[in-house]
């Protein structure tokens, strides 16, 4: 019998071809039922419409008051009286559990606990404990949500800043503002969707670099536009003397035509971006003068924001400008205020930094509120990580410093869909999180959610894979939202 089987297994060419034809026929028949087979866009990652929220947003715009250098949570929003009681004693080793240290304190033999030099008071209905250095922020305690359990992975300024701004420590990804610009577009076509304002405090400072507002791999129209800190926030915006508006328009039209030809030839998307940037600059010529004109502001604003709001380049002036930009539909206004890096002289520098930011930050919230804009604007105040509960070096003459601490720190948010109150809890040493941690990725996911974007669906394909602001992590934190 076996010869029969062998014979049947001896497939000859005709038989093979015939069989294959049948098989291919089967596939062909099936492929009729799968029209999108060779199109290459799987359903689940289908590109989303850009320029409009994916679902009804709680907030339309963001003002991010970035406190650069890492303000100490223990002298601002995370009240730890135990540290005062145990001041000078060694930090319990059980707290540290493998936390790495910076080069600045890794050689330190002792880690003596230090309590806050500044007193704390309870504010608002939530009874939030806020340091005496921030009385104005205290007065708006019922409008803000203090998150005491932010945590990050980075331990030095640059990676931490980059992580917070772009979702990765390495600095090749688009910044939050660029993602917003990409995902939601600009409300006001006459202004950039992403503006950056810089100011310098009086404390020990850390640099800010343009990579913090980079468009990364996104189109360069999404890059943050840095405003100058001088009298003219946007340089060279005025036409040169003697140039007529009509002539300028004609020039731009012809230039666009030339650029269009170049685009056709080379196909470089940057050429296209350039054309759009020229057009934006042209429209900005009409929109910006209204922004920088303070004559329409009532005299009260000086009382609200403090007199420095009239001095360009100060934090107060930037807060006021941020309100005007946001009011004019700028999607993402990013402020950086430097000087929060108190490795030493906490007692001397913290009050100066607080003085520069307290009144103006609170005024911004009130100002948005009285214009009916707070419920559609998300305001975020905070730094890149926290500071240690032990001193850097010794406590001398009552003065001390604190090193970097990534495990927990405090920020606050207000407006657009944020649930006021206090969120999360750290242990009584202020070293570890006890309840409700908010990781940077979770923070990003939540901010995007408030803006009406599913963080898993805002993607951009680059180098063969899709990227997100939260990359492959992040969970929306419902407890932060109304």
């Amino acid at each position: 019998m076996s010869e029969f089987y062998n014979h049947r297994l001896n497939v000859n060419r005709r038989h093979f071809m015939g069989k294959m034809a049948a098989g291919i026929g089967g596939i062909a028949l099936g492929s009729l039922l799968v029209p999108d087979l060779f199109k290459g866009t799987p359903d689940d990652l289908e590109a989303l419409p850009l320029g409009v929220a994916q679902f009804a947003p709680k907030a339309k715009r963001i003002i991010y008051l970035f406190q650069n250098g890492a303000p100490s949570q223990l002298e601002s929003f995370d009240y730890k009286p135990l540290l005062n009681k145990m001041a000078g004693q060694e930090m319990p080793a059980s707290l540290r559990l493998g936390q790495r240290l910076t080069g600045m304190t890794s050689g330190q033999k002792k880690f003596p606990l230090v309590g806050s030099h500044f007193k704390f008071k309870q504010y608002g209905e939530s009874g939030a404990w806020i340091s005496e250095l921030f009385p104005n922020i205290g007065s708006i305690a019922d409008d803000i949500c203090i998150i005491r359990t932010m945590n990050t992975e980075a331990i030095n300024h640059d990676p931490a800043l980059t992580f917070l701004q772009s979702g990765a420590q390495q600095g090749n990804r688009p910044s939050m503002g660029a993602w917003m610009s990409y995902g939601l577009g600009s409300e006001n076509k006459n202004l950039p969707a992403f503006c950056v304002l810089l100011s310098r405090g009086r404390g020990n400072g850390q640099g800010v670099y343009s990579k913090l507002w980079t468009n990364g791999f996104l189109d360069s129209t999404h890059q943050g536009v840095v405003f100058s800190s001088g009298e003219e926030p946007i340089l060279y915006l005025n036409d040169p003397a003697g140039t007529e508006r009509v002539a300028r328009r004609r020039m731009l039209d012809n230039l666009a035509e030339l650029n269009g030809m170049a685009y056709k030839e080379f196909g470089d998307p940057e050429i296209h971006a350039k054309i759009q940037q020229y057009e934006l600059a042209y429209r900005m010529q009409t929109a910006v003068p209204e922004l920088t004109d303070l004559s329409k502001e009532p005299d009260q604003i000086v009382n609200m924001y403090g007199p420095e709001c009239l001095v360009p380049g100060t934090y107060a002036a930037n807060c006021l400008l941020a309100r005007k930009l946001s009011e004019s539909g700028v999607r993402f206004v990013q402020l950086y205020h430097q000087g929060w890096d108190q490795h030493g002289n906490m007692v001397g520098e913290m009050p100066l930094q607080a003085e520069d930011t307290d009144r103006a930050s609170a005024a911004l919230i009130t100002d948005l509120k009285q214009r009916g804009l707070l419920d559609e604007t998300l305001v975020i105040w905070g730094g890149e990580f926290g500071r240690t509960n032990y001193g850097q070096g010794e406590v001398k003459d009552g003065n001390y410093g604190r090193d970097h601490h990534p495990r927990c720190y405090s920020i606050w948010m207000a407006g657009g869909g944020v649930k006021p109150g206090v969120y999360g809890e750290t242990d009584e040493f202020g070293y570890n999180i006890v309840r409700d941690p908010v990781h940077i990725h979770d923070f990003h996911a939540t901010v995007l959610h408030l803006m009406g974007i599913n963080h898993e669906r805002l993607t951009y394909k680059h180098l063969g894979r899709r990227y997100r602001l939260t990359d492959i992590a992040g969970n929306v934190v419902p407890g932060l939202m109304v």
Partner: protein
Amino acid sequence: MKRLKEITPTFLFAAHILLVFLLIFQGKVHLPAWMQPLGRMHPMLLHLPIGLLLIAGLLWWVKKEFDPMAVQKILDGVLSLTAITAVTTALLGFFLSREGGYPNGLLQWHLWSGAGLSFLTYGLAIYSDRLYAQPRFMGYAVLLSVAVLVMTGHFGASLTHGEDYLFPQVDKEEQVVITKASPIFVGAVAPILRAKCYSCHNDQKLKGGLNMTSIENLQRGGKHGALWMSGAAAKSHLIERIHLGMEEKKHMPPQGEPQLNPEEARLIFAWIQAGADYGKSLAGLSPTDSLRKLAEPFFNRSTKVAISPPRVYDLPFAAEKTIQKLSTPFRSVTSLATGSPALQVDFLVRQAYDPKQLSELEAISAQLVSLDLSNMPIKDEAIKTLGQFKVLEKLLLNNTDLTGATLGDLKSCKQLRVLGLSGTQVDKRIFDVLRQMPSLQKVLVWNTKITPQEVVAFQKKNRKPVFYIGFIENDSLLLQLNAPTLVNEDFVLTDKIPVVFKHSLKGTVIRYTIDGVDPDTTSSTLYTKPLFINGYTEIKTRATKDKWIASNVVGYSFFKSGIRADSAILTTTPEPEYPGTGAKTLINQKKGIIENFKDTAWLGFRHRPFSSMFFFKPNMTVKTITLSLGINIGSYIFPPQEVEIWGGHGAGKLKLIKTLKPVQPTGYAPNRTLGIQVALPPGKSYTTFKIIARPVPKLPAWHSGKGDVGWVMIDEVFFN
């Protein structure tokens, strides 16, 4: 028949390839409408392979009763028919599944087991003669096929009749949705019991005679009696057991089992203390109630992502073309969210506003829910147009030219909830008008003629709408002025460049001194016009104004750029960290920034004194020499201990002209620029100078680096 036998293997092969293909790409298959009836034939056809396979099995079982050749022939045919009908059924089943409406998990089981069955029967059919030779294999293969058949059939039946059809589940646990209105027992207490207690105290396992899985059972208690005394937590059995030491045998949950964490223990305590009420809901407690505070985190955990569903607007969609036409750079028209008919409109750039832009919006009046006209020159007449936007919910008219006289026209906006009138001319007359708008929740009236007292009076009588007055200027609040601003940011001045100060706040007075003393607020010189300097000058200023605290004092050092040296050489080398750009650093008229000594404008000396020679063309008369130095006491950068000025003609013939010892600081002070100006004896002229500045050899005792050598940082030397 023969023909059928020939075609069968080819058909089976092609059909199975098709089946595999469809299964791989099942997510993408789009079924044309005409194929749907085919799918519906699946329930009819499926009985054929079932019957045929069972016949084959039966035949195999009773084969010994018949002629073996006949049986084999018949079995061959039956198996072929089974395979053909099985694969056809599977394909049709696949088509049917695309209609949707089936629970996915079960569907996948049915799909894959059905496909598996089809392949099994395929194998049986084509290898039947070979298997026939090995009866044991054949038996197993048939048995396996029948088993898969039963599975497939069961899944299929569950699909059509429901999962509970065969084995109805009587006490299936309900999926409870937890909201704030849920009882605390359901939302917080029961989940703890379920996680930590049920495993030993349930219907099957009644340790200590206790079952905790239902309220009745909890009330019944265990063999030691009641679990708790309502309202007296401290005396309750359960609490006692929880709080016994870990080493105690009676501690619950027992050692080695997951323990209650402190929050859970506290919550159960508080719940019993509050009466162990099974019905009491979270929402029923006051926000400050301690039980509520303890229970809330558990509720948040149970509610998971309790994201409120987005508001759905039941409005007709506007034409895409209309929206595009209305959307301009000065009037943004956007949809509230993807797929939402509701529209929002923002007007931008005041100077581009035209009343026509507003009336054009009538085209989308049925969709317009949010309109922002803030900062636009809107007059009272415009309200009439706004009244036609019937679904408007939010209307911002801040900083417009309204007086409020025509606000009554907004009464037709029945949905209006928020109205922004901040910064307009409206006054208390609007109270009466707006009170009659029932849906209106909030009116913003900051910076209008309406006073806080008027708002309080209105709110006393009317709860809605809430008038929000915003920031109230407080006359008794004393704020400190900011310091005067220096307009020119250049500190090296010529005869033609003055020092200009200004203050951004109107009515502020600036006072200044040039003698190094802090200016006071009444008698120091008033700054009225730009100042010209004669030589190195330290100007201290401060701003004052009525009802304001005077500003801090700020000081600036100005250098006068006079005669430029022809060339310069360094006769000692600076420290390697601060090399500047060599000797020319000193005569390039460029000052360094005090915050950044790493800048190449600075030269740093420590272990060697600073020493440099400067050469001039003849017939230049230098009257003063000014050294520009940086001071940063914390970083050991002090004024030099001693400065020597040597003069003459040519490098080899210099004489010491002057020696001076600068004043040393007596404590820490802010970083600053220091100028040391030396007047040369009159009547003499030199073409060569040598300047030596010696760092402080020992820092004073009060300094943290006492005894160490100080630094000298120098960026420029000016000759006048």
